[in-house]
């Protein structure tokens, strides 16, 4: 068996190591966020006395806020920020000793969590559609779900590379926490994590088209909900794919220079 399969297995074992934390992460967080969002939007719909806002009914909005928090977890995983911390405290040394690429290793651990949360999305979305939603759960819906899950995995790869770029700045700047917070904020705001992107002015939506942000959360979430066309998905996949390649090259460049800065502090 290849080493990366063991890395995946080990990361999953780490995820399952603490039972209460697992269930809180798996169910608790998502349900609380969903209930809060549902209550808020219920109030907004009632105040505005409308049944549709920017193409979203209340049920669609509820579904959106079931998908989006899990989508954000697919992107940010559990390992985002770890590399910067490891560089900061010197534990990064471990990866320099192993006869493998540190970035392959890190990407695999990161995508393992993304895959885990994608599975969570599959389960919770299916439960919602089968037991709560009034609309029937059809084969088309399942196809949309699978396409959306694939898009989320691509988005996770892009976000992971963006995070890696920023995390490696800690080779120069030691503490880059504020940059990570900014990345998360931009992703949520321009990616559709706070509100669906249709709520932004048209000029802002147009300006974002060639950036990676709309394809990180909004496109996969809307694909799962059946709100996208094939052309939109295909174009989004190409754009995000190109960004992944660009980010990968930048990561390589930063590492090429930054590795001279690593001092392995604390040992």
């Amino acid at each position, binding site marked *: 068996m290849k*080493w990366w399969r063991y890395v995946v297995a080990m990361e999953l074992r*780490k995820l399952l190591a603490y039972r209460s934390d697992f269930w809180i992460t798996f169910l608790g967080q998502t349900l609380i966020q969903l209930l809060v969002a549902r209550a808020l939007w219920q109030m907004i719909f009632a105040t505005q006395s409308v049944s549709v806002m920017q193409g979203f009914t209340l049920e669609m909005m509820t579904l959106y806020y079931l998908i989006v928090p899990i989508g954000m977890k697919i992107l940010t995983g559990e390992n985002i920020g770890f590399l910067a911390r490891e560089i900061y405290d010197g534990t990064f040394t*471990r990866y320099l000793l192993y006869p*493998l690429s540190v970035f392959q290793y890190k990407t695999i651990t990161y995508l393992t969590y993304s895959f885990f949360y994608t599975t969570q999305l599959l389960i919770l979305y299916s439960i919602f559609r089968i037991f709560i939603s009034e609309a029937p759960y059809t084969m088309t819906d399942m196809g949309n779900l699978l396409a959306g899950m694939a898009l989320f995995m691509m988005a996770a790869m892009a976000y992971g590379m963006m995070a890696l770029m920023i995390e490696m700045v800690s080779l120069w700047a030691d503490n880059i926490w504020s940059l990570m917070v900014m990345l998360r904020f931009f992703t949520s705001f321009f990616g559709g994590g706070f509100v669906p992107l249709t709520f932004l002015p048209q000029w802002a939506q147009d300006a974002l088209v060639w950036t990676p942000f709309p394809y990180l959360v909004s496109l996969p979430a809307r694909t799962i909900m059946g709100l996208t066309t094939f052309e939109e998905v295909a174009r989004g996949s190409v754009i995000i794919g190109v960004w992944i390649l660009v980010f990968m090259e930048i990561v390589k460049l930063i590492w090429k220079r930054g590795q001279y800065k690593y001092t*392995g502090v604390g040992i």
Partner: protein
Amino acid sequence: MIEVKNLQKNFTSHVKEPGLKGSLASLFSRKMVTKQALKPVNLTINQGEIIGLIGSNGAGKTTLIKMLAGIVHPTAGEATVLGYVPWERANDYRKQMALIMGQKNQVWWDLPALDSFILLKEIYQIPLAQYKYNIEFLAETLMIKDQLKTQVRKLSLGERMKVELMAALLHNPKVIFLDEPTIGLDISAQKAVRGFLRQYQKEFRPMTILTSHYMEDIKELCPRIVIIKEGEFVYDGPLAEVQRMMGDEKVLSVTTREKTFKVSVPRHELSKKTHEIFEENYVLDLNIHDPSIEDVIESIMRSGVSPT
């Protein structure tokens, strides 16, 4: 073989004046200082050899090890280990090397050690038979068999160090860097680790560089030592020869009513000095003996006496 030629490392860091004023000033302007952690040094180590690297804190021991393990790049100079330039980090080199740090964990904290070992088996591509033999041999020798299925974070410090040793040696490295492997361990754990390292060295004959502040580690394991002071090698030679360097000296260990102290005295002044001590103090006990290795090394580290 390890060959080091004029290897040198400088570190640059910023200095900040203490207090809030200093913190505010550092937001706008920073004073950078460069410290020469390792001055140009030369070293050769042959296969099967184990050397002790001795020096006070900040002397440059760990910096040298970090460079030879490929973790940091040197400022200048050359080094090859088993024919590889360490900081190029060739996978073939890393498969034959191990770094064990007494103060850092390399195995995964939240998992039992055996889970980490299975992953390491794949990373280092250890054949199954060799893996099984090594697990058996290492666990047996380190007497840690019963703890391998317990989460690493729940192990005692000594048990964790044993697990670290197992993880680092699973792939039978040809070169081992041991950075203070017995730090923080109680006496029996120290003895166990030393006994294990001696046995491992005998069975597998790796090249080993050991740093330790415990002289017992050095005395038991290292026939050759390198003493490093402020980034420079001040002695490189057999441990046994160190005592000879102060062959003309005798040590007086004195206990008076007020205090206990040691004095190094040239042999020809022994009688005069002893007389003076008796005259100036109410002596309860006095011993005359040759300087111990610890005394000599301490003296070299303090005064930088070069080998004769």
